[in-house]
């Protein structure tokens, strides 16, 4: 058990114990960047309330807190994207007031944002240099040089991505890496990473963590925000916890444990771990037979001969590495890829030839992986986002019944714990994790027979994650079939009655009960398909 140091009134943070035994930067106790009494108010919310945050050089400064605690808001203020309602920023004891991201960058503060900010229609190298193109003497862009730098950066990130690839052709995890590369291309002394690993696979995460180590060794201060607490504990040098916009605790790594974090984050002690309940498994509700999806260009298959069933009351998890074809599999089931082959049955009904809306009507639902692109409607309110997929349930005659809609929306807001100041608030004003919860709510409201979830807990805090686990468990207990994709071993183990593993478009394992172990899952995810099926050709 460790004790939290409430330093809310300690302006300089000098009272903090020095970190000893650290390999990097432990001798510099003076923060390079400090905030003093930062307050940020939005209509209806106080996002930050007198925050004194210290960023130490050569350290990984971990910033944690529940969804909506104010982490991203603080990030945006540090980067000059937003200005605080009151309070000030001190860079090496000099008061600064960056008024734009450009000014922030000029001061050596770089950010990797929670939501991707790339230009999908531009190439990787163009994205890396937008806003600060390498320009020749006559004012033309030096594409050659940019590509060279891009190639080096991609090599550093161990990615086999050509600088000419359009960003829209990359998987979301790869896009995240490009975003990271963009920050690396700049010369920064403070790098803020807002949930950089939420879309990354394990291997990609390792690469990122290695780079974080390299940067801190060079003396760069990293501000690291993540809901993956084991990751934070592994690399963090200093921990700061935000709760409801207030800084509630700050401590060096040796004083920090998982229990400390959870207690400070939510103000409640670590709850009982989620426990799968024994459920009665019923008839098959979803049957997939020999599903294949040809690659759009270049031949070969994204998905090859996949067959499985999901039964009522059962949660089936699909594990695999990024690019294994899991997202595409769910998309095929929903009818998003017209050239998919094979058959899909929902109950006894074949879904062949049905449009997306007809499949949804028939009882499928999908919580997509890429919430910004496929999940949220930024022009609409939280309530309208949540009710959109279930409008037919709220329709009386020609018109929508506002009262019923409102009631159901609030039921979802409460069960999922979505932090809103009003249901009519624009969804774009919610924190990343709360937007994700709203997307989950939208699908749940349709009361599907089979709920498909693609990385459903991406960006969601620990408490809410276990809430969502419980909800999924309840739904399964009521007889819904659940099919979910996850890159987190623990999530698959905790939630799945049965686990399927995909590698390079094929099913490589189907595990049940006690057999679902980290070892089995990980092993099956790297099986080379050619050894499994020597007779079949895969590109």
């Amino acid at each position, binding site marked *: 058990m460790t004790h939290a140091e409430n330093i809310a009134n300690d302006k300089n943070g000098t009272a903090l114990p020095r970190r000893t035994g650290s390999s990097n930067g432990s001798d510099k106790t003076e923060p390079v960047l400090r905030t003093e009494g930062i307050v940020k108010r939005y209509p209806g919310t106080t996002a930050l309330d007198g925050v004194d945050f210290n960023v130490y050089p050569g350290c990984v400064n971990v910033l944690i807190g529940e969804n909506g605690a104010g982490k991203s808001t603080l990030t945006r203020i540090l980067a000059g*994207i937003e200005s605080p309602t009151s309070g000030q920023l001190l860079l090496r004891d000099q008061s600064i007031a960056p008024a734009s991201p450009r000014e922030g960058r000029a001061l050596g503060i770089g950010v990797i944002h929670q939501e991707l900010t790339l230009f999908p229609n531009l190439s990787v190298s163009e994205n890396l240099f937008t806003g600060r193109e390498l320009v020749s003497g006559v004012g033309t862009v030096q594409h050659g040089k940019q590509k060279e730098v891009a190639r080096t950066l991609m090599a550093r990130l161990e990615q086999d991505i050509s600088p000419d690839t359009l960003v829209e052709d990359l998987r979301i995890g790869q896009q995240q890496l490009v975003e990271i590369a963009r920050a690396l291309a700049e010369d920064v002394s403070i790098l803020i990473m807002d949930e950089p690993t939420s879309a990354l696979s394990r291997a990609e995460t390792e690469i990122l963590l290695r780079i974080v180590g390299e940067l801190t060794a060079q003396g760069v201060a990293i501000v690291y925000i993540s809901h993956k607490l084991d990751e934070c504990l592994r690399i963090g040098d200093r921990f700061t916890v935000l709760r409801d916009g207030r800084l509630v605790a700050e401590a060096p790594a040796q004083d920090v444990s998982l229990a400390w974090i959870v207690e400070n984050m939510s103000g409640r002690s670590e709850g009982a771990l989620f426990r799968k309940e024994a459920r009665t498994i019923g008839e098959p509700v979803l049957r997939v037979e020999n599903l294949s999806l040809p690659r759009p260009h270049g031949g070969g298959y994204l998905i090859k001969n996949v067959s499985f069933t999901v039964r009522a009351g059962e949660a089936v998890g699909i594990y695999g590495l990024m690019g294994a074809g899991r997202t595409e599999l769910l998309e095929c089931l929903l009818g998003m890829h017209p050239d998919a082959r094979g058959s899909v049955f929902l109950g006894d009904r074949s879904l062949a030839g049905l449009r997306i809306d007809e499949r949804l009507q028939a009882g499928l639902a999908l919580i997509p992986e890429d919430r910004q692109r496929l999940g949220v409607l930024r*022009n609409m309110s939280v309530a309208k986002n949540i009710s959109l997929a279930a409008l037919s349930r709220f329709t009386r005659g020609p018109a929508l019944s506002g009262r019923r809609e409102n009631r159901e929306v609030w039921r979802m807001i409460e*069960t999922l*714990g979505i932090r*809103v*100041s009003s249901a009519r608030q624009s969804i774009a004003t919610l924190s990343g994790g709360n937007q994700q919860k709203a997307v989950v709510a939208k699908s749940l409201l349709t009361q599907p027979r089979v709920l498909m979830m693609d990385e459903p807990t991406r960006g969601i805090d620990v408490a809410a994650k276990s809430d969502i686990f419980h909800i999924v468990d309840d739904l399964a207990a009521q007889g819904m079939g659940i099919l979910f994709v996850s890159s987190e071993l623990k999530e698959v183990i905790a939630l799945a009655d049965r686990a399927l593993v995909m590698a390079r478009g094929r099913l490589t394992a189907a595990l049940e009960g006690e057999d679902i172990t980290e070892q089995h899952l990980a092993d099956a995810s790297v099986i080379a398909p050619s050894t499994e099926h020597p007779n079949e050709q895969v590109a």
Partner: protein
Amino acid sequence: MGDHTQPVPATSRRLPLRMWLLQSRAYLALIVLFIAFSLLTPAFLTTGNLVILTKQVAINAILGIGMTFVILSGGIDLSVGSVVGLCGMVAGWLLTEGLILPPFGVSIFFAVPIVMLLTLVAGIAVGALNGWLVTRLGVAPFIATLGTLYIARGAALLISDGATFANLVGQDDLGNTGFPALGADTFLALPYPIWVMALFAVAAAFVARKTPFGRQVYAIGGNEKAAELSGVRVNRVKLVTYMISGLCAAMVGLIIASQLVAAHPATGETFELNAIAVVVLGGASLMGGRGTIGGTIIGAFVIGVLVNGMVLLGVSEFWQIVIKGAVIVLAVVVDQWQQRMQQKSLVRMQA
């Protein structure tokens, strides 16, 4: 569950005054114009003038209503001006020459309500063509409706070989008299076009705000992919928005032909620009997903009052055009400004 989620107490539900002023700027502009013209010229604030003004407003407002749906869904309809012309000609043709059935060599004449109905159907059909091009063939809305702009205008000219159908009063023996009433007669002291505008506005506002269809139009304009994954039938909804726009344009075609008691194939040229202007003045975003029917009506009144007032003041016609353009640009600039203030953080949240 949910104990970490008390709704954050609202510090203040009221908007700051500045925001309020910005948000209601269209109303304020209208009121200011109204007061200014009333003071500047006694001819402005007379019942007669106001009725004339509203009749003029009705044309842009009705076109703007249809255009609002299209723009909300992220599209644009450049064909409405031509559809106005085409539908006027369809009505004129049905009234004067009837529907010719070649095999029998006879033409059938319809009563005025049937003529109107057929004309509206013709407008909806052009809208359906637009929608079909956009959704099935994947033509960009700007290009598709630019194409139908020419096609519909050409068709209008072809109907009469470029001639005007004059004197659309109908003939007693054919049983098709009464067409001019739409443009000239009144109900409860208000001319029919004003009633039509009111009817269309109320119906459209209801559809936009209270029906699943309306909600889905906004959803498509906001994020088409996400809307599709939420079960919205994107293609069908878009198709219907173009059909609504076609219907509105046909209605305007009828009103104008009836007011003039004649149908001329060049009627409605550049009306599409006015329609877009009133929608934008009303606060809609050409990117889709943002705007209201009420805003569009206000926008139509702002333009209408401005033009009417300037005419009364004797401002030269050329200056009127310049000022109209300046007002539109100003409106968009102020709108951008408001968006920036309101969403400064929002836009940046993803930036």
